[in-house]
């Protein structure tokens, strides 16, 4: 029964999301695009986290995808639509190759190396001035994809989110889930149960990185330019993390919930307190991390268990 209700709610939410351009103006669509972009990144971060690996490399792979997309068009003469899946392929291939080096690391060593990777990509782009435009960045000569049509840009970002949701659902419903959960819980017992730890980590890292690259491609084609400081910004790592922490980790629903809440709160605060909203926003994130480490979902589960305990 609960599962049926959940499916019905998901279907309604999906229908509303697809139909939103029919009844929402350009401003809500733009805000929704921003929220969906960070939501998709939060989901991909969480997908890898289910194996116990904390990555700080989101911005690196997002930026790599962004530059792959724009350079594919500007330098490679690629059609704009093709540059977006190309961005995913480049980011996934980079992650696959680097995975052989870095997926032997665990805990903070892995986290630090992913953080360094992001900085390394940025520095490489920075220094290939003639090819990438260097620190000044590079502009799409033909401008923004779909001529800047608000509805089309919204659907493009929604498609990126749908890919992230579908991959997350696949991670939850297929045997990858058992492998990643086993790795996250205890690698020795996972290994002795026949789980090929490296292989499943490589799959998770490659898939999540590919989606992050895809989102970078969507982002860059939606705004028509890329600068190293812009697409490798720490915001693309820190905000998805904060969203997943707020909503609740180790599942799809938590990051979705966190992204909606933080995204909307951020925009609402900006309207209400234009000169101090970032301070309030920062305080909210600190309070959430201090007092709700398991996120909203964790709190809800705790309260639900408390209520059931009270009944018995």
């Amino acid at each position: 029964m609960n599962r049926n209700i959940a499916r019905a709610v998901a279907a309604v939410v999906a229908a509303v999301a697809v139909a939103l351009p029919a009844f929402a103006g350009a401003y809500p669509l733009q805000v929704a695009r921003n929220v969906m972009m960070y939501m998709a990144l939060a989901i991909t971060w969480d997908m890898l986290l289910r194996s116990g690996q904390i990555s700080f490399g989101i911005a690196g792979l997002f930026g790599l995808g962004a530059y792959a997309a724009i350079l594919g068009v500007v330098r490679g003469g690629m059609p704009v639509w093709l540059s977006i899946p190309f961005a995913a392929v480049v980011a996934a291939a980079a992650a696959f190759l680097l995975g052989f080096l870095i997926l032997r690391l665990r805990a903070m060593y892995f986290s630090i190396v992913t953080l360094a990777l992001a900085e390394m990509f940025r520095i490489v782009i920075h220094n290939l001035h003639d090819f990438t435009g260097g620190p000044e960045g590079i502009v799409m000569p033909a401008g923004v994809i779909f001529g800047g049509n608000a509805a089309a840009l919204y659907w493009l970002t929604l498609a990126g989110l749908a890919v992230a949701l579908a991959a997350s659902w696949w991670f939850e419903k297929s045997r990858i889930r058992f492998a990643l959960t086993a790795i996250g819980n205890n690698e020795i017992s996972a290994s002795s149960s026949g789980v090929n730890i490296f292989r499943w980590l490589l799959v998770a890292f490659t898939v999540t990185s590919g989606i992050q690259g895809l989102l970078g491609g969507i982002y860059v084609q939606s705004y028509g330019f890329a600068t190293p400081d812009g697409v490798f910004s720490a915001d693309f790592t820190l905000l998805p993390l904060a969203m997943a922490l707020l909503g609740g980790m180790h599942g799809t629903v938590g990051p979705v919930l966190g992204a909606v809440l933080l995204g909307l709160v951020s925009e609402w605060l900006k309207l209400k307190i234009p000169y101090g909203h970032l301070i309030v926003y920062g305080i909210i994130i600190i309070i959430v991390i201090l007092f709700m480490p398991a996120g909203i979902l964790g709190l809800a589960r705790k309260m639900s268990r408390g209520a059931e305990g009270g009944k018995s």
Partner: protein
Amino acid sequence: MKKLLSSLAALALVSGAAFAQSTIKIGGIWTLADITGKQGSAAAQLAVEEINAAGGINGKKLELIVADDEGKADKAAAAVEKLATVDKVEAFIGGMASGAEVGKIPAYAKYGKVVVATGAASSAIVEKALGPSPGSDYYFHLHPWDYNQGASYAEGWDAIQKKYPRIQIKKIFLAYEEGAFGKSSWDATKALFGADKRYTIDGAPFKSALLGGGDYTAVLEAAKAFKPDLFLWAGYDADALPMLEQAKALKFSPGIYLGAPPGWPIGFGSSKLARNVSLYGMWSPAMNDTNAASKKFYDAYVKKYREEPATYFALLSYDAVRILADGIKAAGSTEPAALIKALEATKYASPLGETITFKSSNIIKHQGITRQKILQWQNGIQEVIWPFEVATAEPVYPFPAWK
């Protein structure tokens, strides 16, 4: 009762429509957490209040609606959409960081409303994204492009050397922050000063303290070994004092020590280290003694906000409102075609000490200011040393040796 309600509803509609008709809304987008955005929006509001106190524009009041772009492209795009579709503004002003400004351009182009931009100097992305006339004719860019800035500095130093023969520059060293701002400064410096081989140019990047850096030893050692006549650094306000401290520690005192950050730290002038540091800019409170418009703006700003305008972006934003208001007045409308035509005839005596008109730049049709100023900290005050027609003091040369 029904009749009374209908009458009230009709009255509400009429008065609402009348209010809407009696107000001209303009949208201002800045990075509000930054001093340039905070003071820029405050100065724009000051201009709006002055215009309204003087009777408004063609009988209508001006209203400024401010939005924050957070210095990010996606947030900047959302700000344009909100102002255009929710607040229904009739024109836009503002802007500072090029990376945020370029995010606004697709939305600006979609609505085609007039924009009087106050910042965004990067021609490589902003001017290129705007594209040529007529597609970008709605965009009136007040701030000089990076190549304008470079050209005016070259012109300025040539003029200074001619007027003051004791100042001789042969070797220039540029320390530049490794981001877009610093790199474009380096490219412009090489192109403009190095082109005819009159100057020997060298340079090296550094990581700005604003972005987690702050150790300038390597770049200062390289500069010291080069023995430049003009040492120039292009970074941010956070670099100003630490770099001077480290230059002092290394006993590095070039003939001219010049900084080119977008803004200086509050109270920089009162530091002993600031003595005779040169800088690039557009305005200084010292100009109040020679320019009536500057003094009028300065006094009004200090009276209203109880603080000094710390950057020239305050004046650019003030000017943006004034120029836009004059244009609307002349056009008798905010309809883009009429307003663009009226703005093309702009001749505005700015508190920045020059008359602003719009001419073609390398790509766009409507470029306002093309020249910056060379200034020098003297006794805690920024004195203008070039252009000579607005100069407030003679240059002190050489930069004093460290004790």
